[in-house]
């Protein structure tokens, strides 16, 4: 099993969720986060006051998938989250040792 973590632009969330749903990935955790990569920050001025936009709002998606579905999920995310501009985000993968469904204590891929 693999945990897939994707940081994406907030405006891409609906498209990414829909694309994942189409390939059968319906379970995920969505968080509102802030961050930056190389795009870093910039200073804006509003009515004479400067404010720094250094941590930009992003969306983090997390899901644990059977290994066989990871590639399809990655491709779906890449297809729908990409705008081609700096700030599109990143995908991270980590191995998962075990998954357990709390309701009925199912384990392994059956719990996903």
């Amino acid at each position, binding site marked *: 099993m693999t945990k897939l973590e994707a940081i994406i632009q907030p*405006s891409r969330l609906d498209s990414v969720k829909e694309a994942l749903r189409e390939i059968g990935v319906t379970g995920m955790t969505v968080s509102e*986060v802030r961050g930056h990569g190389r795009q870093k920050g910039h200073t804006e001025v509003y009515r004479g006051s400067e404010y720094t936009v250094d941590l930009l*709002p992003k969306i983090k998606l997390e899901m644990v998938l059977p290994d066989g579905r990871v590639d399809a999920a990655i491709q779906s995310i890449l297809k729908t989250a990409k705008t081609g501009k700096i700030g599109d985000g990143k995908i991270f993968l980590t191995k998962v040792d075990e998954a357990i469904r709390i309701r009925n204590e199912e384990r392994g891929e059956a719990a996903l």
Partner: protein
Amino acid sequence: MTSQSSPLSSLSGFYAAEWAGIGRQFANSGDGRAAVVARSSLVDAIVDQVYHHLISPERNAPLDLCLIALGGYGRRELFPHSDIDLLFLVADRPAETSHREAIAVMVRTLWDVGLRVGQSTRTISECSQLHRDNLEFNIAALDSRYLAGSPELFRRLRDDAIPHLVGRDRQDLVRNLADMTEQRHAKFGNTVFHLEPNLKEAPGGLRDYHVACWLTLISEIEKKGRSVAPEEHWPPALRAAADAAFTFLAATRCLLHYRYDRDDNLLTYELQDEAASSGIGSEPGRPLPTADWMRTYFRHARSVFQLTNRFLEEALPATSSLYGLFQKWRSRLSNADFSVLRGRIFPRQPSIVDDPALLLGLFELVARHGLELSREAERWVEECLPRAGAKAAGFPGLWPAFRRILNLPHAVEALRTMHRLGVLVVLFPEFAVIDCLVIRDYYHRYTVDEHTLTTLQSLQALGVLRRETGSGRPRQEEGGWERKLAEIYSELEQPELLSLYLLLHDVGKGMPVENHLAGSLDAEATVSKRLGLGAGDRETARFLIANHLEMSATLLRRDIFDSDTVRAFADKVGATERLKMLTLLTYADIKAVNPEALTPWKAEMLWRLYAQTTNYLTRGLDEERVHFGAENLAKVDEVRRLVSTSANAGGLGAFLEGFPKRYLETHSPEEIAAHFAMACQLVSAPVQVALRARERNFELTVLTADRPFLFASLTGTLAAWGMNILKADAFANRAGTVLDTFRFVDLHRTLELNPTEVDRFKTSVMDVLTGKVNLETLMSGRVNGQALARPKVPIPTQVRFDETSSSHSTLLELITHDRPGLLYQVSSVLANLECNIEVALIDTEGLKVIDVFYLTSRGSKLDSAKQDQVQAALLGRLSGDPA
């Protein structure tokens, strides 16, 4: 543990069978009260049998132990899966030790039977003490009921220990109950109007009913030294409503327990459907539409909620002479029509009246001071409403009175009271369709009317925040977004209009229309007409209601850091005042979905979209110009229609051509038509002046041909008359006709107190612009402007240039502190340096001035040398003590 041959071995089967029988009986009758009493009796029988088998076969023995039912069990209110609370009351510690093993066996046996038992063992002395870390025990003991064992021990508990405790610690008990209730209510948003309410814990639920009972018990025990049936001591009207509510809630909770097969009290959508189709709580077997059934639930919950809050308020003592002084001060809030006593309003003349002004005056008092109505006042309202309400619809003073209410610090408290008493739907029948309306939605937690009132509450909270933090520059910090939004709220010219629009924005959800926005717009049309709102305000209302979801859609679904997104959104909004209203409406709307909906993350996104759009609207002004005939503008068609009978109608296109689009966005068709009429007079009178008194300031409109020093002349004239300019717009069309609008405050009330000065003022403006009067001469005899207050936070003068926002002008942004004659000083500097003002946007936020000028010099942008000159001149002129 029971053995197979023990008399107790069949108890679990017996309990299960009897329990199921109670369930079948409930399914047939729908009678929740009977079901809870039946289960209590069943458990009594089992507990009695177990006690006498394991502890004492003799009645009324042993003498040093007594078994007592507490809490719900003590009240004979055992819901199908409620826990059993038992108290083993012992005479002393040795008795506790001697009975410990038997008690443990008894409790285990009851668990084996299938009962979930919570048990405590206490001495009499412990029962008369306040357990600050376990006040729930003291409260539960109020509902104690004898089951078995020593009657004498029970008597000592009921007649000595508890009255002694209540007599000594009444305030702590009541305060604790109040605190727990307040926390519980806050957890549920302080409202009964949840789409899926928790029948036990939510405001207006069974726990609130019990709180009301406990408060009465405490009061009666203190007075009489013994326990009573609390409901019997309630006023008959309150008791009838509470009884009906309990019957309904009890039946519904039984249904939930049977369906969930555990102690779960969430009234989900599915269970609402089942309860409605079974007629649970009302007429068993008679199905109801779910929406109607839920309205019944809300009605009952509301009456329980009010009952509890009332009893809490009456029970909480005046803790200090300071409180007494506060209450005495509140009495001074009485007026000719209403008196205020102990924080509640009473009508001086309780006879029935049909005067809508008097009725509205009552709620104005609530809105002004946050007072509550006495029971007498509520009765008076209910009796007056049919007659006064019928007159209110056509009452010309309705909007002035209602807008006063909306602008007062406790407006939402007044609106909630009006809604609760049915006044709101009489004044605004359009609102009736969303009364207690449930719209099933994954995100929304409240009924539609509660959601609407909660949006207004969010706005009101911004006003409070603004007053608490005072004026000053916004600071960049985590979680400062609400403070920034509070600043926007304080800048609104007519915040009461935003409140009115919010009241109407979702009424369409109660109409049989496909798109609720269309329904809300219909409601707005009828309300605006009835209230006599101006065309400009109506236009704004229509825009906001029609687009009230636009900003949240943009910030969640579009890239707000993309300039195309900002441009598209700005084009849709058109003007900064509308943007402010839409931002605040969006903030309030999201916040009212549920308590967690507006995360700091979303608030930040909302703020950033607002700031970027403001910057775009301000800086992109120069680029967006009207091209008459090239674009299909609905507003222009309306203006065309208004001027169609004028002999000069054909000149409309030339008049509008070249104005910034902002001109169209910030003026109604009627205003534009009036400006056109003024422009038509320029042939005979080259300076056209119009002056209008507004509620809080004056508006001067000047139309004339552009020329050097024009803006400086106008601002100098205003300064000479001692007028403080709050806002100004300066636009020019392609033909070179300038339309300047100034909103100013008459600091010395010259115009207000001397009506003849109005014409003299207008003549003065014309004379300066036509050269008849020399501005310097006028200014030498000027009224010395009042020194404005020193800003608490220093506002250093900032001058910024922007070369990119406009293709043919240089944008100058000036931030500084306000002072008399400021705009004249600035425009003089610009004029002296041969800078032509193409567009000017002047605004003030408290003592801070934000001026934006689109400048050209000799028809081109300002080169860097000119910019340096301008900057140096402005900084030199404007630096120094503002006083």
